[in-house]
């Protein structure tokens, strides 16, 4: 592992710590329309856009574990969701060369919705069963919007500060740029 990779790993760990602090101290206390933003997922998306699918999957795994611990939910649920989200977003970004802020915002919203959908499926199988349309209206859509809105300033902040610089990838003609 080279120096630059070590620095990047340290950045990711620092980001994880910051994410925990922000999520626990700030984001979880800001409720809009009855939902709170999911900073772990947002950062997973930003890492996927900035660093790629592998880093995003790893980041998502640990972020999910921490989120499960913080929210007293069964360990591994969010890890699974965030790993899938981070990896697939990374592949998608590489394939379509997405790096513009508004595209990232849109991507974050869609990812938030799909992640919640997965999490909802898990809840549906394992736990309390709520009305599907009700959950879409009261939980998934509001959080999708909220996550997208939180993504915009965070992404700009990370790019401007150089914490997670934008990668310059070209869209693949056939198959992903990374794969």
């Amino acid at each position, binding site marked *: 592992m080279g120096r630059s990779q070590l620095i990047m790993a340290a950045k990711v760990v620092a980001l994880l710590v910051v994410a925990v602090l922000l999520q*626990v*101290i700030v984001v979880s206390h800001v409720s809009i329309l009855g939902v709170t933003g999911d900073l772990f997922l947002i950062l997973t998306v930003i890492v996927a856009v900035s660093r790629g699918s*592998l880093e995003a999957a790893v980041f998502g795994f640990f972020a*999910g574990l921490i989120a499960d*611990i913080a929210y007293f939910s069964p360990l591994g649920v969010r890890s*699974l969701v965030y*790993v899938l989200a981070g990896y697939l977003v990374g592949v998608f970004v590489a394939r379509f060369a997405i790096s513009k802020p508004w595209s990232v915002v849109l991507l974050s919203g869609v990812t938030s919705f799909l992640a919640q959908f997965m999490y909802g499926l898990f809840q549906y199988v394992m736990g309390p069963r709520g009305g599907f349309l009700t959950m879409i209206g009261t939980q998934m859509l509001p959080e999708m919007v909220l996550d997208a809105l939180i993504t915009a300033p965070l992404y700009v902040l990370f790019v401007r500060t150089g914490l997670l610089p934008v990668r310059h990838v070209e869209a693949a003609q056939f198959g992903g740029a990374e794969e």
Partner: protein
Amino acid sequence: MPRNKVAWRRVVFVVLIIASLAVLTVSFRQTQSGPVHAIQRGTASLLAPMQTWGDRIAQPFQDGYHWLTTLWAAHKDAERLAGEVQVLQGKVIELQEQSEENERLKSLLDLKDKGTFPNGTGFVAARVIAKSPNKWQAWVEIDKGSADGLAVDMAVVGSTPVAGEALAGKGLVGKIVSVTAHSAQVQLITDSESSVYAKIQGSRAEGIVEGSVSGRVIMDYVDRDISVDPKLVVVTSGYGGGIYPPDIPIGIVVNVGEEDVNSYKAIEVQPFLDFRVLEEVMVLIVPGSDDTLGGVTTTTVPGGSTTTTWPAGLTTTTTVPASGTTTTTTPASSTTTTTEG
């Protein structure tokens, strides 16, 4: 990108998925006292102080946000409540009016139940819809007419919200002097043209209660040698043509005047009713008042003229031409003519 790197990514991805599923499985299979849950609890206990700090830091902002939303909601509530208050005030006024009307109607019913009216007397309740515009006349118009069985010379009683003694607020209003299909004009006992045969309870003195332009009600033609004290009750005597059934309360004696040059006493009577606030009345339909009433005979001529002969020698002729109503009363000693329209 080298193929081995792509494979490496895929391997890591699959490993992470498997790790997640493994953690999930272990988490579910273990009891709450298991090591995974212990680790989770331990880590959560490390996060707890941060959550507490976060809560303390966020609390003022949450309070501010809550205050703003509450303020906005309170503003909306205030607007909504102001509208509701207006509606409710309207309803309160309406209910108050209904309550007062109920009281008056109840009082009328009380008068009907407790009054000593002739057997079989019918009662028609009516609402006052107009009043005489000046003091030269004293009449009210009611919303019932011939279609409701009303006719000229029917007695009218009523009640008004006046506090006082037992009969206060209930008594004689007057008589119907003109009637249409759906309304009737009632001449009040305070009208200067009104005269009611009356007697004073307690002294048995008899006389005629007359109204005046000033609004005072005087009982005239009471013999000077009969002692009359104030506060005695004046009621109808039932004489004078039988328009007014006997014993309908009129008022109380408030002043007894005697003049040397006058052979009768002039007694000022305070009516039980406050005619200024009269709103509902009850018309008495005495049995046989259409044709024969206590010796009164009514004859209807095909041309539209009705002649009524009273026991005291009075003759009343009522004609209803196209232009209006003409009533001619011819007593034994004098003649009175009333023309309307």
